């Protein structure tokens, strides 16, 4: 079972990213997954968070108290949700937008995610696929195809994520499952 939290602000597309990831696991890999998000008075333009759990059997409790992976695209997300990362977990964050302090017991992975503008959320997926065994990149590509057809921008954003990991010389992690 792999537990991921993505957080950002409205418009960054992190909820869509979460859905695509979970969809890839469920529809392409025959696994189980849940995706949920928190709304609030501030949903619009405010902080958003989505919880994704991927598992080989039915996922019951869909909220995450202790995530394996936390991806952060906005500083407010760091402040609000850093406590949800399990000790020793993986913290992926935008290296421009988010400042991470030393106190967090986590593997820190800064990345130039937001550089990719509107495709940043898809780039994040690429990074995740390259970095973890969460889902196979091909599965994600299939979902991208179903959702957006041939629109190449998405594939480019995704590949950018994949290559970022190798560019930075990071090797795949074994988290979750």
């Amino acid at each position, binding site marked *: 079972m792999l537990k991921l939290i993505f957080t950002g602000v409205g418009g960054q597309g992190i909820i869509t990213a979460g859905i695509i990831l*979970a969809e890839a696991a469920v529809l392409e890999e025959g696994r189980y997954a849940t*995706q949920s998000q928190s*709304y609030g008075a501030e949903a619009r333009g405010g902080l958003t968070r989505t919880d994704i759990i991927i598992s080989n059997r039915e996922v019951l409790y*869909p909220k995450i108290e202790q995530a394996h992976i936390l991806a952060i695209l906005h500083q407010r997300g760091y402040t609000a949700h850093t406590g949800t990362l399990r000790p020793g977990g993986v913290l992926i964050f935008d290296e421009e937008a988010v400042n991470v302090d030393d106190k967090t017991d986590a593997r820190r992975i800064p990345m130039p995610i937001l550089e990719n503008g509107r495709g940043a959320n898809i780039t994040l997926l690429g990074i995740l696929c390259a970095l973890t065994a969460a889902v196979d990149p091909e599965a994600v590509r299939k979902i991208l195809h179903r959702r957006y057809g041939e629109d190449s921008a998405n594939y480019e954003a995704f590949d950018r994520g994949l290559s970022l990991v190798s560019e930075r010389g990071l090797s795949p992690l074994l988290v979750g499952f």
Partner: protein
Amino acid sequence: MKDIRFIQGNEACTLGALYAGMDFFAGYPITPSSEIAEMLSGELPPRGHTFIQMEDEIASLCAVIGGSLTGRKAMTATSGPGFSLMQEALGYAVMAEIPCVIVNVMRGGPSTGLPTQVSQGDVNQARWGIHGDHAIIALTAGSHQALFENTVRAFNLAETFRTPVILLYDELIAHMRERLEIPSEGEIPLVERLMTSVPRDVDYRPYLAREDGRLPMSDFGGAHRYNVTGLYHDMWGFPSTDPSVVRGLLSHLVEKIEGRENELTFTREYETEDAETLLISYGSAARTARQTVYEARDKGIRMGLLELETLWPFPERKVRDAVAGVNETVVVEMNLGQVFEQVRRVARSPERVFLANRIDGRFITPPDIRKVLRIIAGKGVWA
């Protein structure tokens, strides 16, 4: 090939309704139910079926009743504030015996409350929101698969019993996405409307029950001209204040549901065979409860879960028997104990029934349940 989706609960409900043959929807948007209307506004027109956005919830249910009477499988969807507004029309549907499905996606109440947060506070309103004596069927579900099935079941029961059926589920289920495997055609049997065999021009009595209690219908506007009213009425549908007619009609309305608890008890059981501690839960809270059961079993604790899918008529016998076989029972829900009170009512040893609940708009967690289990010598806590 299997048709698998990864979707929100509201979509699962919508797909269930379409599977059931729902062909008439009237509604007014409200969080957290709006996705149902949104999806149907796309899906119904190409099928030539009716989607209409009404001016408010009152009009929505009235239109649904009108649609149903003319032969449609009709539905509306709302949340607490809208459901409150529907009570008068809901009573009409009960009285005039109009099959239809009312989806209430629960959010935090009372009043506007917590529009985007999870709660299970409308259980008792589903039973008693209408003025006057009556009986009602209310179902719920704790997963998308179950929600799909119970949506189909809601339509089936509405047709079988000629009554409105309430489908209650909560914001968590509504908005969470998970896997749904759509049953193939025919996999879940559908109950179609029981039509009268009385030929045109022969005296048709819309409110004359058959021996099995079912009332054959005739599409309003079709072969038979009759009257429909919210007043007490005779078997032709004409108003009557005759005491025996009144007593007879009310007894019929109640008996057809309360008297059929057996046919209406839908539950799921997990690890109950040898359980010493029983959790009883429903809706999204049952997910947490089941999770807790599995975690307990992993530690060798003999815990089981009885998950209710019928909320009303309350599955008395089933619950009483289940509770009788264990040392203690913990009802897990996200309100002040609405089902807990029912369980206590039917349990032979109510003092061995406890409450693990949550009322702060947050989803109930396994630790919330374990806390209660730890202090089980005490009583249910509001946490």
